[in-house]
């Protein structure tokens, strides 16, 4: 049976599933329940500097986007960092860590952007016995207006400066949490690396308005008739997160920098995908907020099953897909596929036809008896038909054998060739 024990920048945990810094990790009671449920690690909800804690709104904090049957696809929140006194948090952290020495306990931090503030808090964290710190440079609401959170994370120079202070005043591993609310996530990652970060974690939440109340004409969640943008997370943001993780994993400047993957991890499969793109572990929030802490049990059994069935160790999975993430201009333009509809599996809903006929390439024929057939002469292999088909594996893409004629172009399938050498590319010179 595959060993799921993980070692992330020297922080050991019995499995690679951590709870992200968020409402589920705000206090001892929740964190103990999480550890009892089997979570490998917890990133304690962000602590601020000593003094009167921040206050939260007293109306709704969350907005939600639903899929079919009210399945939660995305949650946006306007909650701030912990609103409990620092000393209470520190006491609780110490207590939990003492009882769960085998679990990872990382403390998320966000204090004003001056050296003293960071030096002070780091000392206090070290005294708790926690395993490391995560720098919250990501929160997109509330704190950013006070010059913290994503206000720091959007300025690479600030990231580098603060990271340097943290490494200077603490021996603890330092994870820098990145905001996705930037144009190029590699820049803040590079800054973190320059500052000496042990790892980056991403993504934090995305600036968002989840919905508008069409009676109140106000964004939701609505506080006394007004709404502010919040941070979006959950399954809906996973594709954005995967891309950002991959960009950092494959960039020459940041290659090898450990990554803790965050963003819509809901099942073992999501976790495996993040890890294949270079994440050493994953952090979860929305899935736990939707279903409770027990979801980790499916993640553990699923990942173990997958590794066993593929005869892989956890370390074999991490980064395994990174070499296959490339730029568009490297894609093989002579790779030709055609959609194939399995008539026995087809339930004759016609969604493939509607999608292709109305919005694509008119490459599906609707024949008497609601028989849908691919017209290979027209099929560009976009695979929209497959995407909208409600039946798994009813439509598949068949790869043309080398030399086989593509009925659309009339040309035989050739060997590898990409845009950089394509005759239509005015910049193509490589072949000459």
């Amino acid at each position, binding site marked *: 049976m595959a060993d799921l024990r993980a070692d992330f920048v020297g922080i050991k945990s019995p499995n690679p599933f951590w709870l992200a810094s968020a409402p589920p990790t705000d206090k001892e009671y929740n964190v103990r329940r999480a550890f009892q449920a089997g979570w490998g690690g917890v990133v304690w909800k962000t602590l601020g500097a000593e003094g009167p804690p921040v206050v939260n709104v007293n109306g709704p904090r969350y907005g939600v986007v639903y899929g079919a049957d*009210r399945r939660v696809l995305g949650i946006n929140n306007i909650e701030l960092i912990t609103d409990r006194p620092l000393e209470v948090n520190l006491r609780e952290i110490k207590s939990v860590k003492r009882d769960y020495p085998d679990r990872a306990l990382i403390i998320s931090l966000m204090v004003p952007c001056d050296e003293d503030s960071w030096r002070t808090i780091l000392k206090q964290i070290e005294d708790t016995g926690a395993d490391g710190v995560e720098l919250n440079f990501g929160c997109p609401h509330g704190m950013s207006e006070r010059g913290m959170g994503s206000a720091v994370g959007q300025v690479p120079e600030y990231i580098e400066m603060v990271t340097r202070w943290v490494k200077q005043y603490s021996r603890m591993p330092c994870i820098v949490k990145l905001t996705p609310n930037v144009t190029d996530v590699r820049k803040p990652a590079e800054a973190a690396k320059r500052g000496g970060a042990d790892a980056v974690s991403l993504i934090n939440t995305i600036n968002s308005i989840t919905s508008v109340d069409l009676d109140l004409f106000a964004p939701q969640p609505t506080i006394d008739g007004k709404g502010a943008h919040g941070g979006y997370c959950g399954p809906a943001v996973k594709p954005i997160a995967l891309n950002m993780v991959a960009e950092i994993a494959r960039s020459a400047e940041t290659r090898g920098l450990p990554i803790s993957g965050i963003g819509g991890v809901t099942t073992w499969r999501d976790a495996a995908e993040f890890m294949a793109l270079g994440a050493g572990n994953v952090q979860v929030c929305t899935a736990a907020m939707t279903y409770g802490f027990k979801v980790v049990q499916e993640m553990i059994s699923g990942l173990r099953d997958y590794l066993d069935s593929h005869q892989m160790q956890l370390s074999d999975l991490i980064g395994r897909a990174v070499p296959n993430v490339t730029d568009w201009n490297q894609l093989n333009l002579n790779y030709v596929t055609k959609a194939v509809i399995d008539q026995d599996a087809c339930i*004759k*809903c*016609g*969604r493939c*036809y509607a999608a292709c006929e109305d919005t694509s390439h008119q490459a599906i024929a*609707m024949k008497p008896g*609601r028989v849908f057939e691919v017209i290979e002469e027209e099929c560009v292999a976009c695979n929209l038909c497959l995407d909208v088909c409600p*039946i798994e594996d009813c439509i598949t893409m068949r790869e043309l054998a080398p030399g086989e004629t593509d009925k659309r172009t009339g040309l035989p399938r050739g060997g590898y060739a990409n845009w950089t050498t394509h005759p239509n590319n005015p910049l193509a010179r490589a072949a000459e």
Partner: protein
Amino acid sequence: MTQAKLTPGVVPGRLMQADYAVNFADVAPPLDRHAAQVAADRCYFCHDAPCITACPTGIDIPLFIRQISTGTPDAAALTIFHQNILGGMCARVCPTENLCEGACVRMEAEGQPVEIGALQRYATDGMIDAPHPFLRGAPTGKRVAVVGAGPAGLAAAHRLAAKGHEVVIFEAREKAGGLNEYGIASYKTVDGFAQAEVDWLLSIGGIQLRTGQCLGQQITLDQLRADFDAVFLAMGLGGVNALRADGEDRDNIRDAVDFIRDLRQAEDLAALPIGRDVVVIGGGMTAVDAAVQARLLGAETVTIVYRRGQDRMAASRHEQEHATSSGVRIICNAAPVAVHGNDAVAEVEFCYTQDGPGGLVQTENRFRLKADQLFRAIGQRLEGAPQALALEDGKIAVTGAGRSSVPGVWAGGDCATGGDDLTVTAVAEGRDAAEDIDEVLRGDG
């Protein structure tokens, strides 16, 4: 169990008073908003959807379901009513397993269709108490007579009124609704829905309802043709087929349609007499409705006997299952040969049948069923059709959108040829005849 339950003969009050309300409650309670959302989420919004093709009235089912799922059930209701003004009743009585739901692609995917009937009811229920949603067109000055206030007549009248014509409906009975009011099991349309639907439909205006007007008695086709610009005949099937079995004239033998009518009109179900051992002969919806309701009134044994195989029964599979799950026994391939007893029926004698090359063959293999009440449900036939009309297979012959052999006279619903004898088919025929009448009256037809 009350003692009355075991009393032999045909007696009222077999059950405790409270049991009647329970037994005759809504057989398929409406979906609430949440259940409707869950059900609506299952629709694939198929291209050129098979369910639309399978609906005799051609309701755009994927569209109305999408309108439900986006929180606009009233818009969904309008989508339904545009095609089928009696969409509320059809949602309750359509054999959906043979129509829209039978064609649902989810049947092929997992054998569980989208609950189209229940969703249609969800959408239409919300509008029955709302103001009538359709406006009448500019007055045309034309007058159309509609004979029969059943589904076909009502659908035609509504469409004609919407087009701006003045309509008079002549109905033989005391109330409008036809089989919706008189011929459908009570548990399918509870709380006076049939009359509420009629009232709502008529509230478009321009439709005068005259009850107690039977064609051939109070009114004649010649007179209607003289007084109106067009006539639409939709009087249904007034006659009932006979068993042609010896002893059919004994007491406690009734037409199932009369039993169903009396039950629907009863103020107090406990006052309705019912046998202890009831036999129903026939294989259609009427047989099932009579048999199940006999059970619900407290009959100890109820048996449906049908002369052909079960797969030939006109009652849908769902209806058959409803009967058997209600405690009704179904015997197939058996035909009545004699009714035994003194004054009243005591036993019914059957012979088993076989399908032969020349049709159904009676065998010598016989059996008897104890019966103190016998219901005939072997089909209805047209009665009293005006002489001038050409008939075909015992019904008014029509071509196209219900044109009869007499100019200016259209016919639809059960009394006319074409289509199954279903509520939804009658609605489609009434609607289409109205469109055709409108074109002719405007001089376009």
